């Protein structure tokens, strides 16, 4: 058998690139996709804004201080999800062994695809070309015989590039990289490694693992990775653990009625994503952040499992009423936990689709053609109008 060939594909500044694609006036300009201008966090930063030091997950306040001239746009998750579907369809045309890591990132095991499509580097070039031509977005790729090296290679190839690390080069490639680049090395482990005088991956690789083990937990695994050994296979269709939607409000809201339309909008989004994925949820979780930044989560088990947004909304509101009587709320989020796939055992008496099922199917078809905002409940729409008026 040929050596494994794994490609890690990662979209460049994914949300920001989608915005620049759809709004030509943003191209070449520093773009930040983020929640609320003063209160949210950076969801994506275009390459034009990165020299200012703006990074994903940074607070919007800090990002705007670093790059006051950046254009801030609110996220459009439906657009990102649509682009993601197109990208994953391109992956699927190359190999069935696709392990999604997020909307815009995946491992592909192309070991068995080389006879059909040529060497791995040619496959990666072809995937990036198709994404550029068909989806209109830049992507980077890393190619290696093991997963974590492929991921490091794509990082170093960014933006809009690709890099292949041959099996014989892995040692030399890893050696000069700092230890924190290894999977599983956080600030604590990094400090412990530094204390032992180990600063690069090469330092770890050349040590006796027993020596490190005495000081650092999990050292054996780190040492193995540092050798360029990563036995983890590409696992296709790794099931998501939860599906959620959340939102930081423009101003703190007080009381159930004020947050009601927001929670409804979040619940409906989660419902639609569950149905798209063909799964249901057994547990609804409500997340609430108060004006003092304290955070609570409350959850409720559902019987039977559901993919209906209105059901999620009702349960989330019940949880809210119990958990947050009349406090100022900064953020809410609704998520579906304990996801269940379709039952393998088929039923003898297929129940006729219920009214909510039929309604959701109709709404999903409308959303597919005209976008997720084409039909929304009246109070969600009214709330959005009020928000728009506030913004102007």
């Amino acid at each position: 058998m040929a050596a494994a060939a794994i490609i890690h594909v990662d979209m460049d500044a994914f949300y920001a690139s989608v915005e620049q694609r759809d709004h030509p006036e943003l191209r070449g300009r520093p773009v930040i996709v983020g929640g609320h201008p003063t209160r949210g966090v950076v969801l994506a930063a275009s390459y034009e804004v990165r020299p200012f030091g703006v990074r994903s997950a940074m607070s919007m306040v800090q990002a705007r201080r670093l790059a006051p001239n950046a254009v801030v746009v609110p996220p459009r998750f439906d657009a990102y999800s649509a682009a993601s579907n197109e990208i994953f369809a391109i992956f699927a045309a190359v190999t069935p062994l696709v392990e999604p890591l997020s909307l815009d990132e995946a491992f592909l095991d192309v070991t068995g695809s080389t006879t059909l499509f040529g060497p791995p580097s040619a496959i990666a070039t072809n995937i990036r070309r198709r994404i550029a031509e068909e989806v209109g977005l830049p992507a980077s790729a890393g190619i290696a015989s093991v997963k974590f090296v492929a991921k490091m290679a794509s990082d170093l190839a960014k933006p809009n590039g690709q890099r292949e690390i041959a099996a014989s080069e892995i040692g030399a490639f890893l050696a000069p990289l700092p230890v924190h680049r290894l999977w599983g090395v956080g600030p604590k482990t990094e400090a412990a490694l530094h204390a032992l005088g180990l600063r690069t991956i090469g330092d770890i690789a050349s040590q006796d693992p027993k020596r490190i083990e005495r000081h650092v937990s999990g050292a054996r695994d780190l040492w193995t990775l540092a050798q360029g050994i990563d036995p983890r296979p590409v696992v296709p269709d790794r099931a998501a653990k939860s599906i959620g939607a959340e939102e930081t409000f423009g101003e703190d809201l007080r009381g159930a009625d004020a947050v009601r339309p927001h929670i409804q909008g979040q619940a409906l989004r989660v419902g639609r994503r569950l149905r798209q994925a063909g799964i249901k949820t057994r547990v609804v979780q409500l997340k609430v952040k108060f004006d003092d930044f304290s955070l609570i989560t409350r959850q409720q088990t559902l019987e039977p499992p559901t993919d209906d947004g209105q059901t999620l909304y009702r349960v989330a509101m019940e949880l809210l009423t119990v958990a947050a009587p009349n406090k100022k709320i900064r953020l809410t989020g609704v998520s579906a936990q304990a996801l269940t796939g379709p039952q393998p055992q088929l039923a003898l008496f297929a129940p006729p689709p219920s009214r909510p099922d039929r309604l959701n199917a109709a709404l999903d078809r409308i959303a597919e053609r005209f976008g997720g905002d084409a039909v929304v409940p009246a109070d969600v729409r009214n709330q959005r109008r009020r928000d728009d008026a506030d913004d102007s």
Partner: protein
Amino acid sequence: MDFKIDKNQLLRGLYLAAGIADRKSTMPILANVLIRTDGKDRILCAATDLTVAVMATLPAKVEKDGGLTVTARQFFEIVKGLSGEEVHLRRSEQNWADIRSGRAEFKVVGMAERDYPKLPAVSEAEMFKVDSPTLLDMISKTIFSVSLDETRQHLAGVLFESDGNEARMISTDGHRLSKVGRKLPGGPKLAAGVLIPRKGVVEIRRVLEGRQTPCEVGVQQGHFVVRADDVALSVKLSDGQFPPYDQVIPKDNDRTLTVERNELLEALRRVSIMASDKTWGIRLGLDKGKLSIEADNPDLGNAREKLDVAYKGVAVQVGFNARYFIELLTEMGSREVRVEIAGELDPAIIRPADGTDYLGVIMPMRL
């Protein structure tokens, strides 16, 4: 209350009562058996969980009229362990039961007879004399596929249909269905089927266990009544609507094969050892002259067995829950069985090859 009774007679009544008395009920008295004198030569031994009631009228020598109730489980254990042949039972103050036999003596806390729920009247029911072994056979051919999901009332029982000459029992848990038909001359003429809850069917089987002589059955005021000599059983019928079962029995499955029942059963038992214990998923593959059975378990390994069968149709592979096949084949008495398949998502039928009126419908699994 004061009477003497043969130990084995009393034991027979207590055995049935202890199976019905409900220890988990919110009504403590339902864990008790009711004992009451009935004239000079008989006593009543009864228990109910409000769905099923058993009433045994047993021969006894009554000294003094009266009744009491006492915990069924302990009373049964006490009487079972007695060494004497006769039991002397007496009520003392505060409804205590005095039990004496040989040199043993028990005093057991009881509760007042008048606090016990009213038992259904069975004497007015119009009864029909039917063959007990036939009834028992029909029960064991259907009870295993009754739904255990108490929230699905309409599937949690056996449907009984009878026209006075022939009778049918049908059960389904929503994934598979069993249907058996037998001649039952003299049976009740029912306009529509009655749905007997699972627990009631289990108790009917206990009452009729091993019985060769006929029993009597009848339907009265929403109850199914069975009488076997001095024991009467009344089961409150379920008001759930049993699904239209005829619609899910395929009429034209065209991929059929005949196979020796025992050979298939044994192969399924062997291969299913490797199936997942959660789903019991196995794959049946049909190809010219061959039936293959495969189990593939990522955590355990795999197994495969091939049987020679007379099959000439197109090749097809269908996933099934092996347990559904095993339970059904175990109940089939014939030497050979016929398996009728349509497609990988369509219900399959298994029936005895000797023409007996019995079949099982099994929905496939996605594997």
